[in-house]
């Protein structure tokens, strides 16, 4: 079910691991709460640091690793961005001037990996694309649309629409059509014929900070969370969207991930991923916590489950560690001991279903979760 990776000083983390099922070849990139990005590789059951990307002057606030083109983009509080290309054994940075006057906060590659979007504290979103003739990444800004910092960005699978959340409580959807980069036929649905920076819709569902937005794999549903312990699901994003507000009884979420069209994992201040799912009628509800909150009587059972997963992945040698993670005295009852602020899908080669993902939190841990042996959830995959 999960595997644990922990460093003492990792506080902020963005991970983009790539897993190849056959060789168990796993790479992970994260920022240990400073101006560096560390890349680790899993080799023979051991995590080994293979690269340190060092170019930013201040804390790195966002990392995204494009899978097909194998490029890493990083953004930082120093208001700049770097695109890292692997040449031979080295990662070579290219500076991208974002033209911001406040910190960059988050970054995401577009599905086709020819653009990336940066959210910032300057109430703007940058859409960056590569200009062949100048050998240069250009940043185009969407200005005067947000009333506060942009906390998260998410790309629609059509490579054109971009959803943003902001601390003004709104979730907005923009067109990012760029002449010469995108073609008109590359998108269908709402906004496919709109200009760059045009706002498709603004969702006023939350009255406080909004975080963590994602599109479902098909792009038909949008989910985002508010700091008021609510999660919002929006269908038919366009002129007349239909929304569902789901309130839950625990602490607010920070980020979400669609595992399938019908299942969403939310992570946040409760230190334990929450599972939300839609029933046959499309009504979303909270299902359960992923790492069950346990009572002392059930800890033995979960301990054995953890060991089982460990055994499967890494041989039985890790038993001791796995049992350490299920001490009943832990305050939050889960693997993470502090707010989880990041959730990233794990891309397994040759598997169309997404069954595993990694989370990282303020406790300095990166945890990989596997849904394969969560039998009650398989119907939603």
């Amino acid at each position, binding site marked *: 079910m999960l595997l644990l990776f922990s460093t003492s000083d990792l506080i902020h983390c963005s991970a983009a691991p790539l897993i190849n099922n056959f060789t168990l070849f796993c790479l992970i990139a994260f920022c240990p709460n400073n101006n560096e990005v560390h890349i680790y590789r899993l080799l023979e059951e051991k995590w080994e640091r293979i690269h340190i990307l060092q170019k930013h002057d201040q804390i790195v606030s966002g990392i995204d690793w494009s899978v097909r083109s194998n490029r890493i983009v990083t953004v930082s509080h120093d208001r700049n961005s770097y695109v890292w290309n692997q040449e031979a054994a080295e990662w070579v940075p290219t500076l991208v001037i974002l033209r911001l006057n406040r910190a960059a906060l988050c970054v995401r590659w577009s599905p086709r990996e020819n653009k990336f979007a940066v959210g910032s504290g300057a109430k703007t979103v940058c859409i960056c694309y590569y200009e062949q003739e100048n050998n240069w990444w250009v940043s185009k800004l969407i200005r005067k649309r947000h009333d506060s910092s942009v906390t998260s960005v998410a790309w629609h699978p059509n490579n054109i629409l971009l959803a943003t959340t902001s601390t003004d409580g709104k979730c907005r959807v923009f067109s990012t059509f760029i002449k010469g980069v995108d073609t008109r036929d590359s998108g269908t649905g709402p906004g496919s014929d709109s200009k760059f920076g045009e706002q498709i819709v603004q969702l006023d569902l939350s009255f*406080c900070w909004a975080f963590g937005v994602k599109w479902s794999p098909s792009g038909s549903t949008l989910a985002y969370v508010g700091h008021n*312990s609510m999660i919002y699901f929006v269908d038919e994003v366009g002129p007349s969207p239909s929304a569902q507000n789901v309130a*839950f009884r*625990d602490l*607010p979420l920070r980020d979400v991930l669609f595992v399938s069209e019908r299942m969403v994992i939310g992570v946040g201040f409760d230190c334990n991923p929450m599972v939300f799912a839609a029933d046959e009628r499309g009504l979303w509800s909270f299902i359960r916590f992923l790492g069950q909150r346990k009572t002392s009587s059930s800890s033995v059972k979960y301990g054995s489950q953890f060991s089982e997963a460990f055994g499967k992945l890494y041989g039985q040698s890790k038993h001791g560690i796995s049992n350490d993670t299920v001490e009943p005295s832990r305050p939050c009852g889960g693997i993470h001991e502090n707010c989880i602020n990041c959730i990233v899908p794990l891309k397994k080669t040759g598997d169309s279903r997404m069954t595993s993902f990694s989370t990282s939190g303020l406790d300095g841990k990166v945890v990989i979760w596997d849904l394969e042996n969560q039998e009650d959830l398989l119907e939603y995959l």
Partner: protein
Amino acid sequence: MAGHEEADNAEAIITRIEHKSRKIESLLKQYKPVEALKTALEGSPPKTRDERCKSANWIVVHRAIMAIKDVDGMFSSLDPEYYDILMKYLYRGLSTGDRPTCDQCLRIHEKLTERAGLGCILRSLADTVNTV
């Protein structure tokens, strides 16, 4: 013009609250404190910016909250849809600093948190637009 409409609207809300107040008094006379509380919480005017309306409704809700004797019994017949708005009024009660009011609000707060969780507290505190 917009200000004038707002004032008209406020008058209408006040009239409604007065009507509600009479209904609550009669419910309390019939020993139906939970019904009274539901009536008080229904149609609360969070969306208006008019402080007079908010205060008028608070007086009504306060009357109903103070009449609750059996807190566990109240929750067995109070539907979850009232939890969020009740939590907002509990915090308004706590902010008055009045001893008996705070005692009563804390007593209800404890039970409400047990039922509705920390999310309910977050929803009442994080929402700075729809205040009561």
